[in-house]
């Protein structure tokens, strides 16, 4: 299932960098929109919802590609705890990329807000419930902040591989050849 190659496929790299831009923008939009009463609030909310659905779709495509094409092996020089951290962080990324949009969608459903994305009324995926809304709203907020923290650590680790360890891990996902 996992062919041996030393880089992610071009499709995987394209998905990674496209999603990196989408997700970072999403997190900045999220914390920015809830901080203001200015008209920007509505503009940001109107980007946040469709962008969330775009990220969900891209993440599902990416998951399928990952399951089909696998990932290059981590270098033998990496200590085991570092390898474990890398694998766990990838698992966390997939859970968050798929889970956060679903939690947001579920939260809006539980609040009985219409969920309109690209002019389409999406169905409610959960019943109208104050308890569910509260649970999901808290989860959306806390997990989004965790997602940002994970991205910061991921970026620092990537730069460490690129600049200090120079072990090919960064090159495996680098956008260039």
């Amino acid at each position, binding site marked *: 299932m996992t062919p041996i190659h030393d880089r992610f496929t071009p499709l995987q790299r394209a998905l990674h960098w496209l999603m990196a831009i989408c997700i970072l923008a999403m997190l*900045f939009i999220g914390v920015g929109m809830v901080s203001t009463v200015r008209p920007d609030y509505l503009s940001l909310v109107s980007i946040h919802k469709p962008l969330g659905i775009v990220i969900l779709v891209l993440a599902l495509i990416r998951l399928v590609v990952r399951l089909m094409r696998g990932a290059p092996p981590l270098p033998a020089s990496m200590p085991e705890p570092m390898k474990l951290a890398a694998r766990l962080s990838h698992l966390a990324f997939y859970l968050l990329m798929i889970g956060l949009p679903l939690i947001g969608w579920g939260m809006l459903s539980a609040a009985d807000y219409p969920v309109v994305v690209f002019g389409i009324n999406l169905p409610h995926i959960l019943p109208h419930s104050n308890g569910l809304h509260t649970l999901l709203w808290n989860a959306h907020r806390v997990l989004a902040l965790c997602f940002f923290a994970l991205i910061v650590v991921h970026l620092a680790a990537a730069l460490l591989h690129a600049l*200090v360890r120079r072990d090919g891990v960064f090159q495996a996902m680098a956008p260039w050849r």
Partner: protein
Amino acid sequence: MADRPTSSASTFRSLVLIAVVVVALVAAFAFTAGWLSPARLRPATIVNALAPPGGPALGHRRNHAKGICFTGSFESNGAAAALSKAPMLAAGSYPVTGRFNLGTPDPNAPDATVRVRGLGLRVVAPGGTEWRAAMINAPIFAVSTPEAFYDLLKAAGDKSDPDAMKNFAAAHPEFGAFAAWAGGGTWTGSYAQERYNSLNSFIFTNAAGQDQAVRWSLVPAAQPEVVTPDQLKARGDDFLDADITQRVHSAPQRWTLVVTVANPGDPTADPTKAWPEDRRKVEAGTLVVNAIEPEPDGPCRDLNFDPTVLPPGMHVSDDPFPAARSAAYAVSFNRRTAEDKDYPHHPAGGATP
């Protein structure tokens, strides 16, 4: 790939670079979130300022906290379809959920003590497209900007400075028209006799893609019975709920939806400025209220009448209030829905749909 040795000096430079990148990213995030800008007017700041001195009534809306639910229909005559392609403005009958309410953060305020009466509305078209609105009986709004609204809340709640309201009114001359209405306008004895106004301007877009700035009002079919505040005080703390329940029980209550179309140059960004009386008015249909339900188990309780939930064919204008209201209503909604246990549903009543 084999490790390549690196000098300790270049490693140090690399680590510094990584630290700089991390700090810059985190700082940009904190700035965007407003964590470095305590002066930014946040939705939560406005909602906090609405709370009375004893704190908010948990489980309730943070403003317009006293209210009663209704259901009914919007009977559209199709006349406004030329202005907007919104599905509920095409001729037809559309189900409605709404809420009569009082502009107070106290759900137990005596009815005669609250000047502003409101109506929250949700009209649903086939396919689930919604139009939500929240209107009040004042003919114009109190202030021109959300910032001024926050200043008004601060001045009204300022117990340390007896001149706070005087100073606010002096700094905000546009407040005068609203103050004159609040102090001198007529009172009625019934939710059914009030005219409810959008105050904010919105843009309607028709099927041909033409935009029109509009405001709208619900004009009551019931003849207003003018009463004095003293007469109202004698009627008991909850006379409005009893009155509307009794009226709707006897017969459906009706309002005409009147859409007022702006002339070019009419002020759309400032809800303190009324448009001249001669502006074109389109009667779009009739709101029919068929049933009243107490709020604790009523269908309006857990709805957010966010005025930016708009169908295709309607969108916000340059009026800054709908955005600010949407942001603040969301905070109020998030807080009160998390406080369910403080405002119990009655076990015998039906759950909200």
